């Protein structure tokens, strides 16, 4: 199914086309990992919503990315609970091992890192999301074992 059809099919599930906007943005973001102007335009056409409206919504939410991202997106929590449990050390380790800065992407385009506020897993802190997978109870050891699974 091409992407436009996929979006149109989605829009059938909502009482009005605007309702499908957020899921449609996910659909196009899945393709390239971020939302280019062309991607936003595709959504605008597929849903027959104004381009500017699409952009306004897409730039409001932080889960949509507006510049190219690595193949895998690490979203590492550094909020209070995770911080106490050593998340900041993990940030340093990522930098040491991959040269990965918060907000940055590795040179080989493998990982991008975004530091997050609480992702709701304080009881198993520190925690992160890799793409859509959830990982908790991170340590200096297991974090790299986990990440090595993502090519």
């Amino acid at each position: 199914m091409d992407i436009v059809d996929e979006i149109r099919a989605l829009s059938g599930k909502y009482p009005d086309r605007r309702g499908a906007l957020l899921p449609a943005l996910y659909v196009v973001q899945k393709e390239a990992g971020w939302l280019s102007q062309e991607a936003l335009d595709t959504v605008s056409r597929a849903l027959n919503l104004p381009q500017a409206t699409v952009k306004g919504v897409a730039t409001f939410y932080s889960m949509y990315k507006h510049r190219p991202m690595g193949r895998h997106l690490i979203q590492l929590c550094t909020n209070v609970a995770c911080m106490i449990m050593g998340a900041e050390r993990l940030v340093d380790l990522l930098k040491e091992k991959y040269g990965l800065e918060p907000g940055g992407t590795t040179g080989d385009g493998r990982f991008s890192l975004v530091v997050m506020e609480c992702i709701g897993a304080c009881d198993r802190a520190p925690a992160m999301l890799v793409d859509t997978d959830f990982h908790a109870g991170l340590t200096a050891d297991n974090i790299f074992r986990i990440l090595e699974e993502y090519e």
Partner: protein
Amino acid sequence: MIKVTIDGREIELEHPVTVLEAAKQAGIAIPTLCYFEGLTPFGGCRLCLVEVEKLPKLQTSCTLMTADGMVVRTETDQIRAARRSMLEFLLINHPLDCPYCDKAGECELQDLVARYGPEAGRFAEGKRRHPESFDDPIIVRNMERCVLCTRCVRMCNDLQGSYSISVTGRGSHSFVEPFSGGRYDCEYCGNCLTVCPVGAIMSRLHRHSYRPWFVEKETETVCGFCGVGCSMVLQMRENSIIRAIPRRGIGFNEGLLCVRGRFGYEYVEGGEELTTPLMKVDGELRQVSWEDAVSFVVKRLREIRDEFGGGAVGAIASGRCTNEDNYMLQKLVRFILGSNNIDSAARNYYAPAELYLERIFGQGITANLISGIANSDGVFVAGGDPTAINPILGLQVRSVWRSGGRVIVLGVPGGLKRFIPYELTPVPYSEEIVLSAIVGRLLEDKPLRGENAALEAKLRSLRIPSDDELGATGVSSEDIVRVAGDLSSMTTPVVVIGPDVVQRKRASKSLFLLGAIAYLTNARIFLLAERPNYQGLLDMGCLPELLPGGRPVELEMFRHKTEEALGMKAPEEKGLNLFEMIEAAAAGRLKALYVMGENPLFNIPDSAKVEKALENLDLLVVQDVHLTETARIADVVLPATAWPEKEGTFTNLERRLQRVRKARRGKMASYGRDDWKILADIAERLGMTKTYHRVEDVWEEIMHVSALHTGLGYEEIAGGSALWPYYGEPLRGMEGDFPVEGLDELPEVTVPEKPYLMIDRPLYHSGTFSRRSKALLGIHPGPSLVISPLLAERHGLSDGDKARISNGRGVLELKVKLDGDIPDNQVFLANTFEGFGAMGLIGFGTDSVLGSIYIDDNTVRVEKVLR
């Protein structure tokens, strides 16, 4: 009845309104920032806070509805402190660059801070930085100044319907942006600029050239671009236009303008105006004195009339000139030179369509209020995009959709695309079949009421297409059922008719069918008018068959009335229309042509043919502001005043008489003379005994001669509410029959191998006039061939490539622009840019019933130009 007490004053309200509005009614002004009259309340700035008894917290009066017994206070210490805090928050990021900001002096934030403080901010961190954007030719965006009131976004979405900007990002990194983040891709109405309370979005046209208090004079006038006739204020300094702005409270456009009205005025500031009369000497135009030019024209006109008779003289009037100018041209030609050969570009569609509809329904049938469209529950549009041809009327159509009504467009929907539930785009030149099918289907639901016998008789003999015949148009019978069902369910419908349905073969039938739809559904008819005074041309008798007041010249009773009123004689037989004059000139029967404010060489199809005909004349006089294509081949060119220098009246498409007022005078004004004055001078020298001192004198005479204008003096007109004496009922019933071509036939639908060349009617331009406006050129800089991606693919063309279009009439090479919204196998080209007009390559014929033109043979060969 709702009773509220505001600041100790008791107010009684019929209907619940917001506290802010209730206070306003009582003359109490509550400060606001995000509120703007006419826009949906937003409640974002919290400056309109008020105290309401029994409510614990301060309330935003712009969103709070009044309730019975409410007690409100609008200025207390608590409120003042809250307002001061809100302003302090806004000033955290607002750059205090008032000395440098063009808005200073009319900035709402500045005024509010001056009133409530704070004297100093306490925020010690730096301000956000965001560079000013100069990516756009018209709008400069300084987002550091933006207070995020969203007035511009609400204007663009809710009133303009362009949906071109939005607030992007979040928190203190929110900015208002067009999709591109830089240049706008929008309708450039500039209405967002009107509502911005601060200097965040401003027009570049007058950047850093003035301060609001530099405005020396304001002139209230009407726009000179289209037949809507929006009111506007020209702000002047040193005889130069600083800004053209709308103003709520004047005119029916309610504070809105379109791109042409707001930014197009520069065409008269461009310095290209003619400065002296010109005369052809040894094949070249040379500067001469007024006296030499005028006496030459007088001498030649007299000689030609005396030798060949009045019938050898003709004139072309102008939809851009005032009623007074056009009346005077008509008087000169008809009553002094003795010729009914007078016509104008309104012949291209407006005049014949209106006269034909009036034959069916009576005079004044298309005289309806533009502001009434928004109150209707459905619109049927055929033959042109109202949002481009008559933009402010187009906004009314959009608002029908907004209030839940249905908009149906026959043909390419253009600016209405977002406002229609489905498309109805038959293959070109098959509209007649689709309309017949719609009428056929409507007849099944709607009984004939017996009000219009002639029309009903014709409906009975109308040939309704079979499903097969319909199939060839690309529109299915299900579509027809749907359209007819929608039309039937409308209770207060409107039918909007544009130029394209009239410029087709058998236009009488298409108009008859549209008339039938209006008749069956009880709709009001609107005829789109491309020029500000097309209607005035009809009313002033600038037609070969009509005298001033719309009286048929060939009906003796009417002619005598006019002749009596004037004490002068008019020829008994109707004259030649525009195309007949061209034919007669080519054949040597027409010897002299007087052209006022029109450019026939560019605005009539098949320019090669027109040029030959005009060259064949003994005398071609052109009276205009600029040296147009036609002026270049004239024998005499007389410079005329431009729109901001004129005094007089325009009549808009709803028959509203409006005053055009002079904004510029003195040495900065152009060197032209008023059109009516030049004509009166010539007429006097040819024996007219009456003298006119002021333009009012001309209007006095019009009021005396035309029954439509009796009692409508300049004072009555000044208020903007002087309409023809027509109240929804035809002025003069037309009993009797009317002809329709091909009632029992259906056209053959052929899909030609080569694409059709269609006339584009872009929003950003208005004929050839606007090509001198720097601002409009900034938006739409030059000609291009607009084609569908499919057509482009077949010819190996991509956006920006050069293509050649050609046919027997000529060749043009232009850049192509791809547009996914236009149908395949059609090439759209505007008739705007010198040397690249669409009309030159279009063949035409004249309709035997209407006397209008129809486009015939307009296919072109498309090739890619290889470098």
